[in-house]
């Protein structure tokens, strides 16, 4: 599973081609400095990321701020140009597609943003917001109003609310508007960028259930960007754990949660507080030393080694490849395993 070169498109019913294929994706941002604003360095926000998402499934990218998960999302949608690597949607490379095909391709991949307060135009009615993508893509004439009504119903809003403005709605309802706007073009792929993290706990479950329902109903494929590991477990089929621009562990969600192998994944999972007093009191959190290193000057070899309790000389000399372990999923570590280590890492 360590990122083989994309296979040529073949007709093979036994293993249909994944809807989304991400290969060796790299995104560098220039760092400018000095009087002439010359490029003085590079920040590698995404440093070689590969994964597939089969049609109808959910792939979650998890990790902490600055790990590159949101940049990866934007690269997938073609909102940013990758420095290297490819993103194929249904076999077509978005960056190499002919111009007139690009718009049609873009229609097939949409995004739901985190903050339903900031991402909806306050001057447009809900009907206007949801109908906007249809207008932009020249589809309004084709039953636009009916389509808006149907989508509002689908996300659990009252179609008679179409003439109201976003500020008249609660956070949960606004997020439903955001979801309606994303599905109105009948996309195949939805990138969900922290879709419930701005919502109150009592509202989250409703939105999570809606996303599940829409996936089943419309056969949608999801790339979920999230930091709430409990939500991810409930929603994702596959998980990729990112650290400093790289996927360090990738595999079926249940395996990642039940048999984590990479030290960073172990640390992440050990740190999430669980709403269960006895369990929570008895638990030992792995405390990581130091900070995430700067992406402008990442460590040689394994990027996690500066905070890792398993680090040996080899970790600084070579970069561990993302390889399938005996457990059955992919880990980028020379010393994979389930132990938190005698050393909780030094504080």
């Amino acid at each position, binding site marked *: 599973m360590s990122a083989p070169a994309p296979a040529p498109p073949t007709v093979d019913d036994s293993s249909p081609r994944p809807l989304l294929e991400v290969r060796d994706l790299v995104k560098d941002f220039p760092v400018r400095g000095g009087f002439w604003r010359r490029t003085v360095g590079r920040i590698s926000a995404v440093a070689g990321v590969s994964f597939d998402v089969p049609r109808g499934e959910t792939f979650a990218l998890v990790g902490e701020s600055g790990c590159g998960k949101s940049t990866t999302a934007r690269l997938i949608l073609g909102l940013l140009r990758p420095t290297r690597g490819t993103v194929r949607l249904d076999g077509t490379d978005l960056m190499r597609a002919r111009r007139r095909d690009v718009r049609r391709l873009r229609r097939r991949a949409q995004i739901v943003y985190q903050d339903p307060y900031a991402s909806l135009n306050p001057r447009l009615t809900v009907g206007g917001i949801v109908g906007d993508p249809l207008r932009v893509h020249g589809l309004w004439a084709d039953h636009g109003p009916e389509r808006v009504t149907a989508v509002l119903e689908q996300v659990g809003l009252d179609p008679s609310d179409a003439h109201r403005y976003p500020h008249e709605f609660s956070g949960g309802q606004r997020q439903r508007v955001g979801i309606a706007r994303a599905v109105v073009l009948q996309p195949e792929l939805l990138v969900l960028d922290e879709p419930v993290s701005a919502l109150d706990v*009592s509202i989250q*479950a409703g939105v999570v259930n809606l996303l599940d329902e829409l996936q089943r109903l419309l056969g949608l494929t999801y790339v979920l960007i999230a*930091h709430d590991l*409990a939500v991810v*477990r409930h929603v994702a089929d596959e998980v990729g754990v990112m650290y400093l621009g790289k996927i360090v562990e990738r595999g079926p969600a249940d395996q990642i949660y039940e048999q984590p192998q990479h030290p960073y994944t172990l*640390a992440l999972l050990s740190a*999430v*507080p669980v709403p269960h*007093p006895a369990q929570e009191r008895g638990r030992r959190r792995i405390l990581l030393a130091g900070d995430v290193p700067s992406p402008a000057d990442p460590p040689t070899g394994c990027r996690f080694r500066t905070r890792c309790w398993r680090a040996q000389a080899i970790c600084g000399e070579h970069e561990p490849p993302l390889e399938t372990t005996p457990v059955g999923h992919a880990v980028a570590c020379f010393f994979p395993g389930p132990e938190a280590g005698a050393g909780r890492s030094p504080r």
Partner: protein
Amino acid sequence: MTPDPPLLAVERLSVDFPTDDGPLHAVDGVTFQIDEHEVVGMVGESGSGKTVTALALLGLLPRRAQIRGSVRLRGEELLGRPERDLEQLRGETVAMVFQDALASFNPVMSVGAQVGETIAVHHPEVSASARRERVVELLELVGIPDPAGRADEYPHQYSGGMRQRAMLAMALANDPALLVADEPTTALDVTLQAQVLDVLERIRDRTGTAILLVTHDLGVVAGLAERVLVMYAGRAVEEAPVDDLFAAPRHPYTLGLLASLPRLDRRTRGSPLFRIPGQPPSLVHRPSGCAFHPRCQFRALPAPCATDVPGPVEVGAGHQAACHRTELVADVTPQQLAIGTP
């Protein structure tokens, strides 16, 4: 002889804010107490009144807030006290940490000097060498390695986790009787959260400081608190020892909240999460009677749920639920509700 008064006794605390649409009832008749050395969690969603309650205790609400009720610290009334008294109190008997306090470090002063300054402000009589000793002791307490050496370093030389720890050391500088921590882990990455939880555990286990932990995160409360107060729409709806609250909640809101949480330790993919219907209410136009009744599956309408505000019902040792129908809630556990419900 009368027994010692509790560390903090809050009685029928109400806070209104005037708005163009009428008064906003941010806090409405909240009563609770915190004993010496106790860790109490106050949980609720945005608009539940938890943060306003915390600010009211500290005398930090804006002037336009209309405050009623009573807040007594070791028997002494705090409401209505002049600002100078309150300033003295804050940082000495009561300390606080807020979620954005990280930015409060002065970048050009060593961390040790800043912690020391907090001591000097309240205890000018303490000598420089004694202060230095205390600073090192505090940094050690919050888990900073090589505290004597690190005391002379500047904030930018600290990692994010170390800065969080140093911030808590600063709050503890004068050995407060009560630490109010408002959303101390919110907006932090998980691994940083872990550091903060670790320090709060150290404070709980190694000092006599009582903690009021204000948070929306039930996981944080589960591990740290001994007792929990659940807030909804400005009112305290349930109060219980932490194990009872999670195992056998007696208010429909608490029950629903616990049932709706996705779990890190279970395979639930494919089955819908339990969902509390509806939306949190407006605090200006709050539903009549029990503010939760429009979302409640146990309600009896119209009376009493839509007509009378429920008072606290004693349902167990130290366990109260403000619910007319709490005996029905006793028959349902969050686990039952969480599995396979629409």
